């Protein structure tokens, strides 16, 4: 069975959930090889969880340069591995960094680029070996598209939350690989980092439940109603652009065409009208619940369960009910 390279998304010695989704997707095509690019000592901390999601191999690319420059060290390592291992595909998370890594890697290796997949299928071709087909949801979920690579190694970026991770036992055999020295004239040096202090809530694009508030929430203070419901679910908090523009909630939480795309198991929209640009970021959610006092609000057209009513009455009651269940 051929190898499938999976770039491990990690921060501070912890693996991002999307990596497990990538490993799961990789198993559709072949045998997953996790690629860890990081500072010395990183892979040792990650190995166990990589094994638990079926990584047969772990390529360890560690150096100080690996974290000292933006994007390019990861492209360098993956490009060398594509050459060496001739994998059936390379999978990376469709995050800001991941999309850039995938794009550069495809350009460098003369390969086909399949972006923002929500699923991966393997339609075996006429010969032996895998034919990698990426399932994509485009135009804010209005179209489902299947595409394939025509050249080189398919390089696929996979949307976090696009598919569900499943455990599988893997050997996680370590193999050290070099991180090529950075070319200063062609690289951007990282001189400082201020990670987002996300608090205790899960990350918006990774959360299985998202509770979002819109202009109907009315003020920054009253967003507490949204946060309380989110915390009862253990959910991430999102916001519409109108809520962000009105200063109710910080911009990094905006869901929609010009914000985040989320596809959680459950999306709860409070005081959001459901404009097309908002829907573009959330309509692939598995279940949508909406609370809006306007019975005509377009959000109800896509909600699986809608309540016409005042969010300040409905949301606290739901918070209490969820609390009781989890109690």
């Amino acid at each position: 069975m051929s190898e499938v390279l999976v770039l491990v998304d990690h921060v501070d010695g912890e693996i991002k959930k999307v990596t497990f989704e990538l490993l799961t997707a990789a198993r559709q095509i072949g045998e997953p090889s996790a690629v860890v690019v990081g500072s010395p000592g990183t892979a040792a901390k990650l190995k166990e969880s990589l094994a638990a999601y079926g990584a047969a191999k772990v390529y360890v690319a560690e150096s100080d340069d690996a974290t000292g420059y933006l994007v390019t060290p990861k492209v360098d390592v993956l490009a060398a591995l594509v050459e060496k291992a001739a994998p059936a595909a390379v999978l990376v998370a469709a995050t800001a960094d991941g999309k850039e890594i995938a794009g550069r890697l495809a350009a460098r290796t003369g390969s086909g680029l399949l972006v923002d997949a929500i699923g991966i299928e393997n339609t075996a071709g006429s010969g032996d070996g895998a034919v990698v087909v990426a399932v994509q949801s485009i135009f804010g979920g209005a179209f489902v598209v299947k595409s394939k690579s025509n050249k080189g190694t398919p390089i696929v970026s996979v949307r976090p939350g696009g598919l569900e991770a499943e455990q599988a036992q893997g050997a996680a055999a370590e193999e050290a690989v070099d991180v090529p020295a950075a070319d200063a004239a062609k690289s951007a040096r990282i001189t400082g980092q201020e990670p987002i202090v996300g608090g205790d809530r899960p990350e918006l694009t990774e959360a299985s439940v998202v509770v979002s508030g819109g202009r109907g929430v009315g003020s920054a203070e009253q967003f507490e109603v949204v946060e309380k419901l989110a915390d009862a679910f253990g959910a991430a908090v999102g916001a519409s652009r109108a809520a962000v523009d009105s200063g109710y909630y910080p911009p990094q939480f905006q869901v929609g065409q010009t914000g985040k795309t989320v596809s959680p198991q459950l999306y709860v929209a409070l005081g959001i009208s459901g404009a097309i640009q908002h829907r573009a970021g959330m309509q692939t959610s598995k279940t949508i619940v909406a609370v809006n006092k306007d019975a005509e609000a377009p959000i109800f057209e896509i909600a699986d369960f809608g309540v016409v009513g005042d969010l300040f009455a409905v949301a606290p009651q739901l918070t209490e009910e969820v609390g009781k269940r989890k109690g």
Partner: protein
Amino acid sequence: MPNIVVLVKQVPDTYSERKLSDSDHTLDRESADAVLDEINERAVEEALLIKEAQGGEVTVLSVGPDRATEAIRKALSMGADKAVHVSDPALHGSCVLQTSKVIAAAIGKVDGVDLVIAGNEATDGRSGAVPAILAELLGYPQLTHARKVTIEGASIKVERETDEGITHLEASLPAVVSVGEKINEPRYPSFKGIMAAKKKPVETFTVADLGIDAGEVGLANASSSVLEAAPKPPRAAGQRVSDEGDGGVKIAEYLIAQKLI
């Protein structure tokens, strides 16, 4: 005095419904009104701010059908000096890698480029990777997702803002920058600007003019191809109830039935 190239791209207006053409699964650009993507305007604005502070020249570059001239005119009326427009029927259906190759070749037609500025992500294809791919092809450092750009002599500093937080970047020119939503507020073209734009030079190239064989671009030679495309069946509206004082309880009951709590 940095010599700046700004990329602008015509995208369909999201207010109109977006369609894929039935015949070959390419973006049906005619079916939607096109507007200069708001992020492009921020890219143009940033170039103009740098020029106003440090001098230099701003060239607008667009690869797209003839209709892209509207986007180019808008950028020129905001204050860009001149434009390069690559238009060629052979480009139809090009993938992001082919398009990036064409953009890189067109940048090569502008003398002594110090800085390439683009928007973060066009709203149609969502590849999010064109600026990074350009950096790869040009051999320039990439300073993408910028919320702040500072140029000092031959070096550039950028504050990159993504979901992960802020990353401070430093590199030497020439470089590729992409700008995010928060970088600035784009200006409106003045009447004077609109009049002046009419006299500004727009150089038009075909793919062959850039030294690229027409066979290397277009749908037939794209690095990836669409096997099938289907409009997603519209999400059916589910249940809807009016709050009679028990709206929260009703939602909870629904979620329990769905095994979501």
